[in-house]
């Protein structure tokens, strides 16, 4: 089944069951993402892009079709195996940062390693190294609410990177940030993609953020409306 893709979805569909009957969120999505790609996902609210990201992130399972992550059909996996994928293969970055407010930055960054079963000393060493990499090496003992939003998002990126994932899923990572800070965050993503070859899939509403990507996927009413090169013109038109 492996064709070298990181992500391959075929005939992917998702319905949500409500009291009024099944509501389709995604229908017949076909797409492959290969190692080293930088994909921006756009689309209006309710277009299905969040559902798509949740499925890519193994937080949700498709109703129809199949999703192959590194050639493995995720529907054949147990819950524990899915947890392991989220832990080691995928790195998440969220709009709201989602740091644990009671834990220090060092602990936040090292948390995925806890679930990977790593010992404390090694964990702290790696977490500290990763904080340095995002320019926050001095803040290891601080709590999340004592630093700025941009810094928090950098901590979240450090946490996403700690287990050396090959795929980063970012759900509107700059949505809560001002444009200068957004640029800093996007520079980090670009560098990770360019220098380390990490595959990045990033949801955004903003065309100039999408412009950092090399490929644009656009959703409309649960269907794939566009899949191709980033057309800045098109983005600006939105």
């Amino acid at each position, binding site marked *: 089944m492996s064709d070298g893709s990181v992500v391959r979805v075929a005939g992917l569909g998702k319905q949500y069951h409500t009291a009024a009957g099944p509501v389709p969120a995604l229908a017949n999505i076909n797409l492959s993402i290969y190692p080293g790609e930088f994909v921006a996902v756009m689309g209006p609210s309710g277009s299905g892009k969040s559902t798509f990201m949740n499925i890519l992130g193994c*937080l949700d399972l498709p109703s129809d079709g199949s999703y192959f992550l590194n050639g493995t059909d995720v529907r054949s996996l147990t819950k524990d195996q899915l947890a392991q994928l989220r832990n080691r293969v995928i790195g998440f970055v*969220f709009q709201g940062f989602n740091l*644990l407010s009671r834990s220090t930055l060092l602990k936040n960054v090292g*948390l*995925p390693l806890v*679930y990977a079963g790593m010992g404390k000393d090694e964990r702290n060493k790696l977490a500290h190294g990763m904080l340095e990499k995002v320019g926050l090496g001095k803040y290891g003992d601080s709590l999340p609410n004592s630093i700025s939003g941009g810094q928090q998002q950098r901590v979240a990126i450090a946490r996403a990177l700690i287990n050396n994932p090959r795929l980063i899923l970012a759900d509107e990572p700059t949505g809560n940030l001002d444009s200068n800070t957004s640029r800093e965050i996007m520079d980090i993503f670009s560098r990770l993609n360019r220098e380390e070859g990490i595959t990045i899939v990033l949801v955004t509403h903003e065309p100039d953020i999408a412009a950092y990507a090399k490929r644009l996927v656009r959703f409309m009413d649960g269907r794939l409306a566009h899949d191709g090169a980033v057309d800045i013109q098109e983005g600006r038109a939105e």
Partner: protein
Amino acid sequence: MIGAMISEAWHAMGANRLRTFLTMLGMVIGVGAVILMLAIGQGAQFQVDQSISSMGSNLFIILSGASTSGGVRSGSGAVPTLTISDAEALADLPGIAGVAPTLPGQAQIVYGPNNWSTSVLGATPQYFDVRDWKLVSGYPFTESDVRSATRVALVGQTVVKNLFDDEEPVGKTIRIRQSPYLVIGVLSAKGQSLDGRDQDDTVVIPVTTAQTKLFGSQFKGAVRFIMAQATSADAMPSAERSMNQLLRQRHHIQEGAENDFTVRNLTALANAAAETTRVMSLMLGAIASISLLVGGIGIMNIMLVSVTERTKEIGIRIAIGARQRDILMQFLLEAIFISLIGCLIGVATGVGGAILVNKVSGSVVVITLSSIVMAFMVAAGVGVFFGFYPANKAARLEPIEALRYE
């Protein structure tokens, strides 16, 4: 991994100290109450058991004078009462191991400058076998002392303490109602009797000496009561029947007339007392356990609130790779921690309370390791049992919904 989880649980508990403390308080009170009640109950039981074993086993006491049954009581002395020859006859019955006729009285005892009022018991050498009473020094008096009514005495520990200070009593002469008695032995400590009397506050002399030289008697050989020991617990009912029969015959009691003596099964009475205490301590423990249960429900309640409050956090943890069992373990550990620490404080409170009860009321308390171990195991069990439902609820949260929770 487990180290990280323990530290997580520790931090989570520290994050809301007041709430954690109040949750623990339920456990503290529960465990404290169980330990305290067990200590008091076991103390009472210990006291009863000790009194029973100090009494001697398979014992009857035969009192002169009739029982009150039927409302008619023929007063003692109206009819021939118990005598030494009654005792001798009883000793020949099958199923009777030993018989000790006794004549108790009260007398002032003097030794040197000290004097002490105590109970003086006229008895026979069998008395020490029947009561299972050993000597710590000297020798008991013999049949020949009884026959010739010699002035010899055995002293109990309380008497020793009050008369002799640090002196060795054996070989000394004490005066009982002015007459000199040679102390030939010291009785071992017996402690309290079931009715709370100090059994060591006594002097034992030959029964004949008591009859003829100390108290005098209404008629020849009269004693106040006879203690009889059955050969075994099984032999007691038939021994009781044959003793009644024999004594009625010896006292010439007509068919249908009241006994002029009473045979009491002391061991049965003691066992009833022991059973009462056992039931009492069981009840105390059971009532205290209810507070332990309430404490456990408190833990479950708080853990449920905690899971709801931390839904978002759980979502984040799931997103970065926590398995269901990791989440389950995290909340379970927290519940177990709360109950174990609560238990620890509860044990300290219970032990402290028991010591306080002992100091204030003077009643015996017995704190056993097993009751502490049991309290601990119950507390851990309560933590797991009442922590499991909330922890399981946390572990089964849907990742997306948990992440979206605000």
